């Protein structure tokens, strides 16, 4: 007898990315307290959260919640010397990469995998000025993708409106087999729009760099929580604007590639 038909179906639900639902709750876990109190599993010496035990040299477990900045031994600042970061990345890669633990114990191999994957994740994030800001905000639970994600920034409203019109015209012309001249005209319009939005993107990137510098200065001068919160909100707003413009640029590029 086949029971499978009478068995109740499991309650299927699409997975939900919690990061987008409950941002502040989880991303803001305190980071470094566990690290500093750690001791070496091999020789019991205090490790101070180092990659290797200062006493016996064994690779150490990764404390939960280790953040990318502290992994590289960096302050949570947004100006990063990329050359220095790359050098550290290379020197840590030599020490942590699984290649050098191929003949080690299972435990050590796992630790090398944990540490080297975090190293790579951290390097990938910190070398990119935009990802760096997003990450910092995420750590503080301050990264909030706007509910009004689809809404154009006010200063771009007119351009976006024009763009949508040109896009509609282009699709229509394509569907009805418009003349070559008409198509070329529309293409030129789109290309102009593309340049315009690329310029906006560059401008917003500069703005992000400015706010990032402000953040670093505030950190140096020991600004209070209200001030840094304000800066974070500002950064969050710039990021949202940036992602909107970025989508526009990608959309136009794709449309041009297809036409």
């Amino acid at each position, binding site marked *: 007898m086949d029971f499978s038909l009478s068995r109740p179906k499991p309650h299927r639900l699409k*997975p939900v990315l*919690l990061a987008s639902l409950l941002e502040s709750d989880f991303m803001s876990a305190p980071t470094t307290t566990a690290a500093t109190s750690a001791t070496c599993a091999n020789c019991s010496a205090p490790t101070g959260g180092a990659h290797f035990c200062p006493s016996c040299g064994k690779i150490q477990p990764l404390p939960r919640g280790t953040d990318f900045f502290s992994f590289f031994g960096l302050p949570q600042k947004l100006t990063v010397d990329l050359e220095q970061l790359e050098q550290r990345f290379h020197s840590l890669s030599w020490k942590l990469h699984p290649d050098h633990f191929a003949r080690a114990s299972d435990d050590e191999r796992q630790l090398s995998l944990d540490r080297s994957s975090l190293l790579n994740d951290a390097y990938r994030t910190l070398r990119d000025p935009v990802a760096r800001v997003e990450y910092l905000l995420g750590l503080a639970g301050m990264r909030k993708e706007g509910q009004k994600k689809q809404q154009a920034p006010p200063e771009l409203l007119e351009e976006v409106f024009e763009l949508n019109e040109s896009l509609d015209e282009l699709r229509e012309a394509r569907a009805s087999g418009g003349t070559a001249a008409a198509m070329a005209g529309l293409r030129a319009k789109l290309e102009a729009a593309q340049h315009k939005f690329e310029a906006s993107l560059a401008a917003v990137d500069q703005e992000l760099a400015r706010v990032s510098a402000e953040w670093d200065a505030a950190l140096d001068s020991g600004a209070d929580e209200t001030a840094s919160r304000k800066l974070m909100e500002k950064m969050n707003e710039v990021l949202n604007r940036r992602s909107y413009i970025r989508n526009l640029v990608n959309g136009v590029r794709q449309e041009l590639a297809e036409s």
Partner: protein
Amino acid sequence: MPRTVGIDLGTTYSLIAYQDKREGRPKCIPGPYGTPLCPSVVSVDADGSIIVGEPARRRLLTQSERTIYSVKRLMGRGPADVQDELKIFPFRIDPASKNVIRVRLGDRVFTPPEISAFILRELKSWADEYFQDVVDRAVITVPAYFNDAQRQATRDAGRLAGLEVLRLVNEPTAAALAYGLHEQKRGRVAVYDFGGGTFDISILKLISTTEGDIYQVLSTNGDTHLGGDDIDNALQALAREELSKQGVDLAAHPDTVQELRKALIAAKHELSDAAKTTVKFPLPDGGDAALLGARQKTVYFREITRAEYDRIIRPIVDRTMGPVRQALADAKLTSAEIEEVVLVGGSTRVPLVRSTVEEFFGRRPHAELNPDEVVALGAAVQADILEGGVNDMLLLDVTPLSLGIETMGGVVAKIIPRNSTVPASAQEMFTTGVENQTGIDIHVLQGERELAKDCRSLARFQLKVPPGPAGLARIEVKFLIDASGILQVAARDLRTGEEHKIDVQPSYGLDDAAVERMLEESIEFAEQDFSERQLIEARNEAETVLQATEKALAREQEEAPGDMPAEERHALNGAVTSLREAVAGKDYKRIRAFVDVLNQATMPLAERMMNRALGAALEGKNLGEV
């Protein structure tokens, strides 16, 4: 001491190499035919024994139903994925195939990893013989653009062959390792790897540090179904179209199709150097189409110039350039910023490929190292690095495809972007959406598209959660891509701190239980003694050649008695006698040597027969009536 080897498991050829510690450089291990190239062809004999490599390739012409080539194209793919392939490749897919393809060879059925395992076993036996010792640890190379399922299938093949797979290494990266070692170069390098069935482009940065040299891959791209095979198929499509216009349909003659393929591949190789070539190909009359001596009705005679050849293959070569541009863009470099270009893979011998690459990068590509061997050599170096031998080189490779999970509305949330240095990881938090939900389904995908249906499904699994209010559960899932580019998943319940056991069902692959079962079954194919097997194969081969010679002699006697010069007859008789003597003995190498001698001696004979057939065909006469 157990040895570790590097293996290039290729579409057309496979090779095995090791690091020679005394000389401090990698070397390929030659097989019983004296060459390190093992054709990636597997044949199953009527008695169930498995034949691999050169003898299997010969059986493509006589036992095509029992023989398979280019099985790499099927690795890690489902039946629905290979429909296009089936139009051109003579794969006989078992209709009962579900997620994993099963291929019919004679009356037996195998999965692609099992067939690849036969090739790996053959190579392993070469190394065992070479070292007079057991080799059981290997680094195996894969196309850089292979996805998780294709990598897992390759790892399974290694396991089935009795090898501990220490690491999968990307082919262009392995080539860069061998190349860098050889040239002592630093800077930005593009590796253009165009093989038998796959195309890869990788952009690397070679850096000197105080600890040693780092080979950092900046980006990679490619097409896992684009290679020399496609050139062969384009030529074949042309030939078959022309033949069908003459009313000849080869569909009913699978062995003849293989003969045609062989002739066209020979023409392709000639066109690498020559300005034109001629394809001469005897057509079947429904009778015996053995090596020599068949009565042919007519001949397919076709001249191909380099210009026409270039025109035929240009679309194929052009298809490689999209990935090249994308890889450069991902590395944030322009073609002018690339300091060296390295060509890897047999298909880079095609002149049009070379000129296209040279034109694009504006510099002459390197091809000093043998493009067939360089990948295996690099794999051997990496094997030695893992064994602690070479300790002043480090490879930092990347994952070729973005990893994502399906979210609301079938949209993919990317969690590890393509070209991330591996190992790489991402942690995601999950919760329940409705009250008393007991499981959260997770669907992991690979690819660059927005929607799950357009990406490659890797696996599905369910996180178990205790019943409770919606949104209470807190499950943290860690996705990790290891240094071989293979996904690992771990989950932890943040409220209880418990680690979750996750049973990941691969979407297109064998689960552990299936691999175990196959391992047990494979005992029945337990390796015969190497030289015993070689002896059997060599004798079979000798028999085939002797019979064909006899037939050809009889036929020449009938058609053109007296055409054969006395000294040729003398040499031929001598070769036959020597081979018969060798067959009576037990030295397979000796038998092989005399097979070659006889083959040489019959060449003028075969040439005359072909010309007679051709002459008859050109005069519009039927040879059978002459």
